[in-house]
């Protein structure tokens, strides 16, 4: 199973693997917002948590269709389905590989981009915490959407339509953590809700994604 994770990481970091795409998109978005709404702290500070989370979410969405589509095209998915690893583990590992190559760089880059949006210094810690807890759920839900649309040509739009509503709870609680952190309030409640969502998603979605894959391979 480690072999599958290693292969996906190697593929993502080699030429044409799309590593860094999410961070680049995130940077573009965070750099453009001050041009759009004006560079004043009073304008940027209230919307910074929302922009950061929406940016992370959209960057994550960008590479979702690659999770299964590439393996489906070259036949690896058929072979993985006949391999001794259960499909549930395959989906979980591929979501994990997606998180390591997409979610984790976002977590690392977000504090820097927070400066661009005049995010208060005391909220930076909460930004990291919220992304660290929330982004695994984004990758896992994305793997589910990718599993549903795997056989479709140009399935990207359908994938976004399917996945975005599922991202809304994560987005709401993720931004709430940063907003409360920025105002000096107590973010425990939204953290617990976000952690609960992520835990539930990680426990249940691999099975749903594997079931969707089985239907699609038929």
């Amino acid at each position, binding site marked *: 199973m*480690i*072999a*599958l994770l290693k*292969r996906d990481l*190697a*593929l993502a970091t*080699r*030429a*044409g*693997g799309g590593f860094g795409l999410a961070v680049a998109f995130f940077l573009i978005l965070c750099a453009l917002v001050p041009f759009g709404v004006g560079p004043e702290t009073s304008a940027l500070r209230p919307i910074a948590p929302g922009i950061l989370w929406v940016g992370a979410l959209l960057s994550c969405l960008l590479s979702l269709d690659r999770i299964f589509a590439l393996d489906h*095209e*070259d*036949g*690896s998915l*058929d*072979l*993985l*389905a*006949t*391999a*001794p*690893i259960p499909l549930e583990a395959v989906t979980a590992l591929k979501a994990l590989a997606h998180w390591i190559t997409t979610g984790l760089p976002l977590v690392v880059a977000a504090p820097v981009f927070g400066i661009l949006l005049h995010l208060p210094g005391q909220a930076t810690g909460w930004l990291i915490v919220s992304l660290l807890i929330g982004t695994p759920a984004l990758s896992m839900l994305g793997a589910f959407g990718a599993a549903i649309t795997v056989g479709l040509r140009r399935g990207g739009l359908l994938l976004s339509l399917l996945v975005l509503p599922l991202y809304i709870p994560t987005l709401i609680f993720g931004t709430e953590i940063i907003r409360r952190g920025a105002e000096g309030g107590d973010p425990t409640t939204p953290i617990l809700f976000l952690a609960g969502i992520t835990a539930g998603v990680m426990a249940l979605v691999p099975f749903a994604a594997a079931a969707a894959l089985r*239907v699609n*391979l*038929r």
Partner: protein
Amino acid sequence: MSLLAVHDLAVARGGIRAVEGVSFTLDAGEALILRGPNGIGKTTLLRCVAGLQLAVDGRIEMAEDSVAYAAHADGLKAALTVTENLRFWAQIFGGGNVEQALTAMDLTALADRPAAALSAGQKRRLGLARLMVTGRPLWVLDEPTVSLDAASVERFAALVRAHLAGGGAALMATHIDLGLGEARVLDLTPYRARPGRPPGRPAGFNEAFA
């Protein structure tokens, strides 16, 4: 104990029955070649045996995790080298000698080349070398010799023969002569499904969204 027993199998492609009433058994050391015109359902039947598709009717009996499947797509990653591709599948299937498989399909000289730089025939040879590292007894092969030259077809026949001698079995769909004189041939033409008969099981939701 036979490695594979198929009883009265009916398979459907796109909701329409392709072949029906197919029965055969495959013992260790045996090879069976499926023949028939295009579209009769050879690929569909092989996918059913490999467990990638559900049969419409009939039974397939075999030990769990005994199939190594190879189809038109070789499952290669262009960014990985020949050795990395093969080692990945060896690890996924739990062991298997990569060096030996490379030698058997004459890929040693290409071992460090990225799969993107291989020709179609070389890719196919790598796809077939993968069968060796799976360690599975039953090979299910769909047109294994596509884009192989004469020498490689011979090498492939030797590979299959060695697999059979080692207690394995092979089920193949192919149009060309592999030089495997001992292989049985099953012509699917008489099993073509008669039109107008409803599928054995209700199509259900999955079929509607397929």
